[in-house]
């Protein structure tokens, strides 16, 4: 490699297209984490007393906890007192409609390929856009309301639907669950809230776009989706952040509740800034995502494409409580340069005849490390539970690592658990075959990787599948040769 600094810079710019910063005045609380800060966040959001109480309980619990260290990750010590826990673009009043949103913010989302106006109009996807700590606008409000669907920012839900929030908040991921969930519960600033009433199929895809913009801030969003009996919804989330030399913390919590015969499909394209080619900067992504198939015949499906972040620690899980409930996890996790990912899922079978399916595709390039960690637990009363796990790793180059940790705990002899795993290196013969037909090396790698991820991509809604594919290609630039 004999590239000049400038060329390398250009390459990185190209590689991470979402790395720009929007210069907008921010309302930021002082750095640090204590009761006063939590009270300030709660006050800024004009929250009811029970909400603040809950936050403080979470905070006190968090203070008794230690950072988890069981993952195959090298996590530098995080100074929790150096982080600003709340930053919001200054707006005089909360915008009531998109027309009132600061044009600079709209422009930011345009640049990111999430034109709030257009997407709403053309694609028929309702979007909630979260910029640093707050939601800046949710599209399609009216149409959704007519269908009885509630899709709004979390803050708004606390104001407008406190009874729902109070009933379900923490019911899937209690604040005691883990270190980062406790932290999030104490300081979460915004996120999305979705409620689909009984027997309703959400008339459009819902999507949230998370953007970290301000410096030295953390992003702690919280998403809660409730699907009443027979309800159906497909929800997408995307995330980006500017390029910075410092690391930034993102610790989100997502809770899904699916009642009888309800279906929730949750898709993520995670493209937080991964750091530069020397491992400098990037987002630390510690996320707790869990779905509860609370009643019979409920169905929850997670699909994730994880290409960003310096560190990813994430295990979207399903609790299969209802009989015949089903959980699915489809994942593509790509690491390049010095990125580290420890990701997978947990399928907890509690009900009878429950099924789960896990398809995980890990791609490692550069000096990165990519770990799949999955747990399939069959409870004693879970008669005839079935799980199928397929876990494939693809290595690009010789300096990266792929690891697989499948944990199986079965307390019921009727369980059927199948596990398949493969590890392969991107074949020189495959590359040469492609190139001999006229494809250049990068296109050839992209095509082979795309083929490798096929089973996961086909689970993504069309629009997102195209985006995910493009993202992989960009993320892999310079991975070979």
């Amino acid at each position, binding site marked *: 490699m004999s590239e000049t600094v400038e060329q390398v810079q250009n390459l990185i710019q190209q590689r991470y297209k979402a790395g720009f910063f929007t210069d907008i005045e921010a309302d930021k609380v002082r750095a640090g984490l204590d009761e006063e800060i939590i009270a300030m966040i709660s006050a800024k959001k004009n929250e009811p007393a029970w909400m603040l109480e809950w936050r403080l309980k979470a905070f006190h619990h968090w203070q008794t906890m230690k950072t988890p260290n069981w993952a195959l990750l090298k996590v530098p010590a995080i100074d929790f007192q150096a982080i600003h826990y709340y930053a919001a673009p200054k707006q005089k009043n909360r915008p009531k409609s998109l027309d009132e949103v600061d044009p600079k913010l709209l422009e930011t989302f345009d640049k990111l390929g999430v034109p709030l106006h257009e997407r709403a109009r053309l694609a028929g996807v309702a979007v909630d856009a979260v910029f640093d700590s707050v939601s800046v606008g949710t599209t399609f409000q009216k149409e959704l309301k007519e269908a009885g669907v509630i899709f709004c920012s979390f803050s708004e839900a606390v104001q407008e639907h406190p009874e729902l929030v109070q009933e379900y908040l923490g019911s899937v991921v209690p604040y005691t669950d883990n270190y980062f969930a406790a932290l999030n519960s104490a300081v979460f600033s915004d996120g999305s809230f979705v409620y689909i009433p009984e027997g309703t199929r959400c008339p459009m895809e819902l999507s949230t776009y998370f953007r970290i913009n301000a410096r030295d801030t953390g992003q702690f969003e919280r998403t809660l989706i409730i699907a009443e009996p027979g309800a159906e919804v497909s929800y997408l989330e995307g995330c980006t952040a500017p390029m910075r030399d410092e690391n930034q913390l993102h610790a989100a919590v997502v809770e899904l509740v699916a009642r009888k015969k309800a279906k929730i499909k949750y898709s993520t394209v995670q493209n937080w800034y991964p750091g530069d080619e020397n491992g400098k900067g990037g987002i630390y992504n510690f996320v707790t995502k869990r779905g509860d198939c609370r009643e019979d015949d409920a169905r929850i499906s997670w699909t994730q494409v994880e290409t960003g972040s310096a560190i990813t620690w994430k295990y979207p899980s399903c609790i299969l409580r209802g009989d015949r409930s089903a959980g699915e996890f489809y994942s593509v996790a790509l690491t390049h340069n010095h990125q580290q990912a420890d990701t997978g899922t947990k399928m907890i079978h509690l009900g009878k005849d429950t099924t789960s399916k896990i398809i995980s595709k890990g791609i490692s390039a550069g000096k990165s490390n990519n770990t799949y960690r999955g747990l399939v637990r069959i409870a004693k009363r879970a008669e005839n539970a079935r799980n199928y796990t397929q876990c494939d790793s693809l290595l690009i180059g010789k300096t990266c690592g792929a690891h697989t940790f499948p944990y199986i705990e079965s307390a019921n002899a009727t369980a059927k658990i199948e596990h398949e795993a493969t590890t392969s290196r991107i*074949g*020189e013969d495959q590359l*040469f*075959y*492609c190139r001999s037909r*006229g494809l250049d*090396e990068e296109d050839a790698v992209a095509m082979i990787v795309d083929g*490798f991820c096929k089973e996961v991509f086909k689970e993504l809604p069309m629009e997102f599948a195209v985006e995910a594919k493009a993202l992989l290609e960009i993320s892999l630039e310079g991975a070979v040769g």
Partner: protein
Amino acid sequence: MNDMLKISQLKVAIDDKEILKGLDLEVGPGELHAIMGPNGSGKSTLGYALAGRDGYDITGGSIEFDGQDLADMEPEERAAAGLFLAFQYPVEIPGVNNAYFLRSALNAQRKARGVEEIDGMTFLKSVRESLKQLKMDEALLKRAVNEGFSGGEKKRNEIVQMAVLQPKLAVLDETDSGLDIDALKLVAEGINRLRDGKRSFVVITHYQRLLDYLNPDHVHVLSGGRIVESGGEELARRLEAEGYGFLEESAA
């Protein structure tokens, strides 16, 4: 007229082991040359060296293709310049749609030549026609590249690719091996259809049978990394009857 392919004193080494040891070959436009020779003599090595595979180091001599020196060209540049290699062992690419692969390859070549992309309908028409001529199931278009294809299907798929990509020079490495009698005839017809007086072919084979259909202009024997004998169709017939033994006798 210039040669389509002019190989002079070519030496190729794999891992410092010299496989081709001074090979000469000239193929004119529109000509079809057959290369025969014992197992391990370097026939596939020649094909790979022509197509530019990594690890096949040219340690001496030169390859000129359609007036260009191939030495410094990447495999994809050679493809765009009109060189095609049908693999002895076509490679499987799981999850990559066969039609999509071929169309992407064609468009990559067109782009490199400054020609606009082919539209979907025209492409489909052309690939369907080729499939039909080779009596291949259209379902193969929707499957992953070569994945789970039978041996014969893989070979025929190479010919479909050749027909769609329309190269100037096609090097076919044992495309006839593993084909049943009917498929062999279809493949030979596929090759003959593309013979237009300009396009050239280098056909590597072990069997007389394919050559009976193709009527090669020249037949060469490659042995020990060199062309040791050249002639017309009668050479192929003699090899079929006598084996390679007589070469050693004449060399002795």
